[in-house]
């Protein structure tokens, strides 16, 4: 982190003058330019910088939206429509922001599952992973409160259902809910505080993201082989190699994002949220946003309210504990022939839970969400620890550069040549 170790010779005298007194240029050069990065990262490693891009995009559009929005229960709905209909390009800002939440979660979910597949949470990166889980939790809180702001039917009833979860806490539950609401129902005080917190939390996320990046740069990125960089031959400078690769990935991502914003802007939304909030009329079905659906399914899979709430929050706690639940010394699933299958099973399980969460809890959905929730817990609490004991990992390649530059030589030295060179050129 210290910039003094390698002080680049800046040509510009003003830069040199400033850098001598305030070494920001040295710092940026060190962390963004020469920062040594494994040379074998595949495109799954694009999603960290994409998440950073989304955070900036959400804050930028959000600040401008806040200039036109009114957090008042009688005015909020119409002020959002004022943005959509009267503010110049307000519809664009609002659709970018509204769909940006979904994009942010898509990117972050891929980022998380990449970490799970390649064992990026293992020593010495446990704190890096924990900070990531913290960012994820903060994102969920921010997204939930943001969804309440348009004050449509689903905003109102979603807020009612989710805040009511806290009433499951024994003894103090009801008081906690009243305290959260600022009254005896979701109403104007609730909307006001949610707006305040929705504006605040993204900046706390920025703070945690900075810690996340500091922790990342301590040991550098993990890589598809899950073995450490052993010297200069294994790494390349971040710039220009990964700046250009990330830029290309960003371009592909933006094409997808723009298609959603311009052609299917309400794809992820609920029609009911274009009806102003009405405390006297409950929608036929209250569904949270898609990114909460797996947790919603776990919540509803247990008939007891308190147990359901504990199971739901427990699902996130388990994610935070992964570095200590997975005791296998091998990081990458490429060299873990059994874990690899369970990884895809967990991903499928999350899709199944999400699917169940989108439907009313009746018929086979109940059974499916119970089996899904059961597997989720088994995966973390039983399969992870047992695999460390019984799985026989494949032999690891000796170094990154060896497997990248001489894929042919591998097959002789290392029996089943699983360690293919980078898939993506």
């Amino acid at each position, binding site marked *: 982190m210290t910039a003094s170790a390698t002080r680049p010779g800046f040509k510009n005298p003003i830069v040199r003058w400033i850098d001598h007194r305030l070494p920001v240029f040295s710092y940026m050069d060190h962390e963004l330019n020469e920062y040594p990065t494994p040379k074998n990262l595949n495109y799954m490693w694009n999603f960290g910088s994409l998440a950073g891009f989304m955070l900036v995009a959400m804050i930028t559009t959000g600040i401008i939206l806040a200039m036109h929005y009114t957090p008042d229960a009688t005015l909020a709905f119409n002020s959002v*429509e004022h943005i959509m209909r009267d503010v110049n390009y307000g519809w664009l800002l609002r659709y970018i922001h509204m769909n940006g939440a979904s994009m942010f979660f898509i990117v972050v979910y891929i980022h998380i599952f990449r970490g799970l597949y390649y064992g990026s949470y293992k020593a010495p990166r446990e704190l890096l992973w924990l900070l990531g889980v913290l960012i994820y939790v903060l994102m969920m809180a921010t997204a939930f409160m943001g969804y309440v702001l348009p004050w449509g039917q689903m905003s109102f009833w979603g807020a009612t259902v989710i805040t009511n979860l806290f009433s499951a806490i024994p003894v103090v539950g009801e008081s906690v809910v009243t305290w959260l609401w600022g009254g005896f129902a979701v109403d104007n005080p609730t909307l006001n505080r949610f707006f305040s917190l929705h504006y605040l939390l993204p900046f706390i996320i920025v703070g945690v993201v900075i810690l996340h990046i500091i922790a990342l740069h301590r040991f550098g990125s993990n890589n598809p082989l899950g073995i450490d960089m052993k010297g200069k031959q294994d790494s390349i400078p971040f710039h220009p190699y990964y700046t250009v690769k990330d830029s*290309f990935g960003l371009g*592909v991502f933006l*094409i997808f994002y723009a298609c959603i914003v*311009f052609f299917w802007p309400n794809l992820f939304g609920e*029609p009911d949220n*274009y*009806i102003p909030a009405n405390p006297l009329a409950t929608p036929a079905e209250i569904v949270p946003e898609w990114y909460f659906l797996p947790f919603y399914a776990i919540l509803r899979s247990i008939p007891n309210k308190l147990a359901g709430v504990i199971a739901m929050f427990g699902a996130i706690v388990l994610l935070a504990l992964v570095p200590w639940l997975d005791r296998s010394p091998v990081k990458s699933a490429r060299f873990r022939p059994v874990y690899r299958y369970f990884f895809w099973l967990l991903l*499928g399980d999350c*899709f199944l839970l999400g699917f169940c969460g989108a439907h009313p809890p009746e018929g086979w959905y109940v059974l499916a969400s119970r089996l899904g929730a059961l597997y989720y817990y088994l995966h973390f609490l039983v399969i992870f620890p047992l695999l460390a004991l019984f799985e026989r990992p494949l032999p690891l390649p000796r170094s990154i550069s060896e497997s990248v530059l001489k894929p042919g030589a591998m097959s002789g030295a290392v029996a089943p040549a699983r360690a293919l060179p980078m898939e993506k050129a």
Partner: protein
Amino acid sequence: MRRPLLALLTATLIGTGAAAIGGGSTALAEETASPERHWSFQGIFGTYDRAALARGFQVYKEICSACHSMNLMHYRNLQDIGFTADQVKEIAASVQVTDGPNDAGDMFERPGRPSDTFKPPFANENAARAANNGALPPDLSLIVKARPGGADHVFGILTGFTDPPAGMKIAQGMYYNKAFPGHQIAMPPPLSDGAVTYPDGTKATIDQMASDVANFLAWASELEERHFVGVKTVLFLIVLTVLLYGAKRKIWAAVH
């Protein structure tokens, strides 16, 4: 990487299978689902049919607006669908709106201006319910975005009035509608053949009027033509991404 891909494929198949099984229980919803029609504004290159929008506004103004407000619409918005500034002024001036208070502290009536919102048919919700057998005619500004099925749903409701199936009891003051959830709707059939006279000579059948007004309401719920600027944006991004891919290939050439 072949094995993980296989696993992903399996997971997808399981997911698709689950979706297929899940499809069975949505039969209830399908009962009221309106048939899908083709709308000119659909698809990446879709645009609104200006003539249909103007006819749709006429249907709204002459029929729907007797009970349904459009509180988010301003008269000035009508310029976007082909009315001239003078025509818009004339349409706005055809209603009297309450303004004030004036210098003497009194409210007064004046002709509408283009900057006014569409004048609602009822002073408040209670007045609307009192005049409609207790039912509240919903505001139509966002109706196409606020209902599953969108324009198909609006068209389905307007053309969905039929005789109830044998044995079904219809509550007093209610009407049978095959597209409405629950099939009993408080709105009497609003359209009848020839209910409006189109200046462009189009024959005013129920289907034609329902389609025109659904077009108008779809436009009213968005107001914006997103598709054209969307196509330009995506084309720009594709060119940019191709260039970035080229740059990436060139920079990485030495590493491989």
